[in-house]
């Protein structure tokens, strides 16, 4: 009886994982980027790239999204919105930082009104570098994130200042 239960449990959790990997709905938030990344994200929807074939759908409401695609260096004004949107998303949720700005602030690093990257505000699960990344790169990043869902690693804050530790 117990064995049956665990078998059922395994099947169910396998099914859940399968569904999660095959139906990621994404929400796009621009936290002050130059639009370059945003038009490339939009381009992934269009016939040449068509991410719907991977089951990825752009959603409008944070409540219905699984993955937050975040572009831009996160301006002070956008920070609170970003947090709120992140909180509004139901679990399980993932964050993908797209473009150099979202990774580290990029060319805007050090400007007084930016937070230098998404990771300084919310935990990020995948980084897609590029200024802007090509649509292929964005799709590749998303696919890699989905691949990692099958063997989830614990969420950790990225070590941006690793070099600082070396000299500490």
């Amino acid at each position: 009886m117990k064995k049956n239960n665990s078998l059922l449990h395994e099947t169910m959790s396998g099914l859940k994982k399968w569904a999660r990997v095959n139906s990621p709905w994404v929400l796009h938030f621009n936290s002050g980027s130059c639009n370059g990344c945003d038009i490339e994200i939009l381009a992934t929807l269009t016939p040449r790239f068509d991410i719907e074939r991977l089951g990825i759908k752009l959603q409008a409401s944070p409540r219905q999204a699984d993955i937050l695609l975040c572009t831009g260096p996160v301006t002070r004004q956008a920070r609170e919105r970003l947090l709120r949107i992140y909180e509004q998303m139901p679990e399980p949720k993932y964050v993908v930082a797209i473009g150099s700005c979202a990774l580290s602030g990029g060319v805007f690093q050090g400007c007084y009104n930016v937070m230098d990257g998404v990771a300084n505000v919310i935990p990020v699960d995948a980084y897609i570098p590029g200024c802007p990344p090509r649509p292929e790169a964005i799709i590749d990043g998303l696919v890699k994130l989905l691949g990692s869902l099958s063997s989830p690693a614990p969420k950790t804050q990225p070590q941006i200042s690793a070099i600082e530790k070396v000299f500490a």
Partner: protein
Amino acid sequence: MATKREPERFTISIGPQHPALKEPGSFQFTVDGEIVTKAYVRLGYAHRGIEKAAEQRNWIQDLYLLERVCGICSHIHATAYCLAVEQLAHVEAPARAQAIRVLVAELERIHSHFLWIGVSAHEAGFETLFMYSWRDRETVMDLLEGLTGNRVNYSANILGGVKCDINNEQTTAILDGISFLEERARHYFDVLTNDAMFLQRTRGIATMSRTQAEVMGAIGPTARASNVARDVRVESPYAAYKQYPVKMALDTRGDLEARFVVRVNELFESFRIIREILATLPETELAARFPRRVPAGEVVMRVEAPRGELYYFIKSNGSDKPERLKVRTPTICNMTSVIKLAVGHQLADVPMILAGIDPCFSCNDRTVQLKDAGNQASTMLMWEELRLHGIQYYQGLNK
């Protein structure tokens, strides 16, 4: 998402995260039923402080910084900056470089207008047109990539000229590409002016008379759709536009449909200019030598971005950094008009009205910024530490 309820009134916020806007910007519309009675705009979600940052970076770094004011019209920002700084430094870019600048600018205009057709169709709920126009847009993206090496943020400009040349293969590719696009543009012109359902959403919507456009200071295609003859390429030709004169596309109706018509007509004009440039590309050097320091002075440079007049003001104090750099992007001028136009329209028309001026919030918000607060300070410290570490290390060795 608090609901603000006043008796009989209802405030809807659009943005900063809103599906209609791929960019942040916050609009508040007070609606009575479905009719908008009040509109308010709050920018600043994309305000990064580029103008301040530009004062802290040197002339060459600024080129790459300013290119990232806006990802859609990056080349025109860099062109305006280069032309302005060249004027300050009394350096003239060679003729071939000027022609290539214009060529890339026109390709960028094609990419931007195709993008805009798609985005507006998307706002109107016409997904098929969005998909088709973006599919065709990939053609011009390929051309730009072949020419400059990047799909967006091309970095074709350097101070004193350009860094990418055109060979025969590229010429053929561009000619092929634009004849395909021209055919497609004709098709879209047909759809945009004949599709009865689409016209319901554009004809007679957000009409702006000529006087209104002038008073509110509308510019670019938005103004030209209201019959205001305002195009920097014609009024004050820069780069190679003297050799390749532009015919202005005008329309008298001033509604959303007219804005579509003007933009598509501009596409045809761009195709013509590109063909002309490719046929008569001057054979000169690609770049002139450029000094590290720029003589003191002030310059105003105006260029025609896909969205309208782009204005740069640069003041130099003779050092290797600008003393003051002001960017005024086209959207900020058109924003005033859009806010006034929205009042009295249906909520359903608002995304279309907003899209009608082809807004670009990253353009708008760039204005100020300072250099580094926390982060840059810490970077510098790290450098300092590194330096000290090195000194101590070698002192230790010497002992």
